[in-house]
């Protein structure tokens, strides 16, 4: 294997490493095949959860996210991460601190107690963005890396909220990623794996988990998820793919909770795009830990393996 073209500090967050480790394993292996090396970001913590921490005290939110950013600054590496919630915290706080001296001063006053200083020397990327942007990888290279095309599988995309919204504050190089009303760039990535991307009603609706609502009012939260499930069922898809482990938790474990609370069963497999990419590059369901999912991936796997 030739040396990696790009290197990033790999920021893991919480739910990927601690609930869906297949997302982490698949990201490291699949990205390596595509010339991107993901280096461990030693000592990172929760991003922190933007809904929970942002709601309590935004100053704490800024300082906690800044600590994670400084760890990567010390490695002199840009950050890559695989979760929309983490993107909201890490990318957005980086952006805010770079552009607001008062916030930067406030954060550094606290970080001084840790012998740390936020400088604003790195950038933050979502792995989905690295896959889509040909400056790093691009759709064609993703397509070329596929050894086990996911032929015949109908796959819907859940974009989630915090990667792209609000688009007015985002700075993606690829313009198609700034369309938050009806984006199709993830569908391009799904098609690159040999699967058939499927559209469904109100695709851009939230999963219902964020803002602390999942913990505050689980029935309200699941009712939002259930609306998406109804629309997905109507589209007759074999799987739902996401780029956010928290959304994945809400759709995957959430289907079990929906069954308990509303008495409706869907049985729709939910996979992070990294897991799909891993499968398409020949990783086995065991290598991906798909057995850890709340909803069995078997019906989908039988179709594509």
């Amino acid at each position: 294997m030739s040396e990696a073209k790009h290197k990033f500090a790999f920021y893991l967050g919480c739910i990927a490493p601690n609930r869906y480790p297949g997302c982490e394993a698949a990201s490291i292996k699949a990205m390596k095949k595509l010339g991107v090396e993901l280096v461990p970001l030693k000592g990172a913590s929760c991003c922190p959860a933007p809904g929970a921490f942002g709601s309590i005290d935004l100053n704490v939110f800024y300082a906690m996210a800044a600590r994670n950013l400084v760890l990567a600054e010390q490695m002199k590496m840009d950050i890559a991460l695989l979760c929309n919630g983490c993107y909201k915290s890490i990318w957005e706080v980086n952006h805010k601190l770079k552009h607001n001296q008062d916030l930067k001063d406030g954060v550094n006053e606290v970080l001084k107690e840790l012998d740390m200083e936020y400088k604003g020397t790195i950038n933050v990327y979502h792995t989905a963005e690295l896959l889509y942007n040909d400056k790093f990888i691009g759709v064609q290279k993703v397509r070329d890396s596929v050894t086990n095309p996911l032929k015949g599988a109908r796959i819907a995309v859940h974009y989630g909220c915090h990667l792209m919204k609000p688009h007015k504050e985002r700075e993606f190089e690829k313009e198609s990623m700034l369309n938050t009303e009806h984006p199709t760039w993830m569908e391009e990535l799904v098609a690159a794996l040999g699967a058939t991307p499927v559209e469904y009603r109100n695709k851009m609706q939230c999963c219902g988990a964020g803002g602390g609502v999942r913990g505050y009012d689980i029935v309200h939260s699941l009712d939002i998820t259930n609306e998406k499930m109804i629309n997905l069922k109507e589209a007759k898809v074999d799987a739902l793919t996401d780029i956010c482990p928290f959304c994945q938790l809400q759709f995957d474990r959430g289907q079990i909770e929906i069954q308990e609370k509303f008495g409706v069963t869907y049985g729709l497999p939910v996979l992070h795009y990294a897991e799909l990419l891993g499968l398409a590059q020949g990783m086995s369901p065991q290598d991906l830990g798909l057995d850890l999912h709340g909803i069995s991936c078997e019906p989908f796997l039988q179709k594509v393996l």
Partner: protein
Amino acid sequence: MARTKGYPEALDKKLRDQRYYREDSNPEFLPKVKAISRTIAHMCFQCGTCTGSCPSAPRSTYRIRQFMRRAVLGLENEALTDPDLWLCTTCYSCTDRCPRDIAPTDVIMAMRNLAFKRDIIPVNFLKTVQAIYSSGHGVPNNDVNRAARERLGLTRDPPTTHMYPEYIKGIQKILDHYKLKANADRIVKEREG
């Protein structure tokens, strides 16, 4: 504002009483919301695009437009004590679509920050703080997952504060700087005994 001679003072008084100078309005509320949210909340012209875009609105009494009005009118108590304040999933659809480029989502976040200063906060938010204080993670690792990670060729604990607990001290310093852990412990104890 220039007025004609016959401007009905009674109407003026009525509008003043009902729209702008209610007994419970606090003129300091809007500036505080704007300072924390860093958004131009006063520019809201009540079009309702926010509520129309809100996934929480169709299944509750939560109306983001109403909270925007409360910000402008300074209705601090009404806003901060309304349990609907905590039904925003922060999906940012309203912010994405606001024709005045306001961030209603950030107005909600600012109001939540102000509510917390008065100990108004659902307990689940504080439990996340407690989890992060002790482990660095809001959703910590467990034994089933450790075994799975090993099987996948990963380290049993991720290379985060889990594998390097010496980094937790820094996180605790940040949370203690803002007295967040102490406040969280106190409020959880008051609620749950």
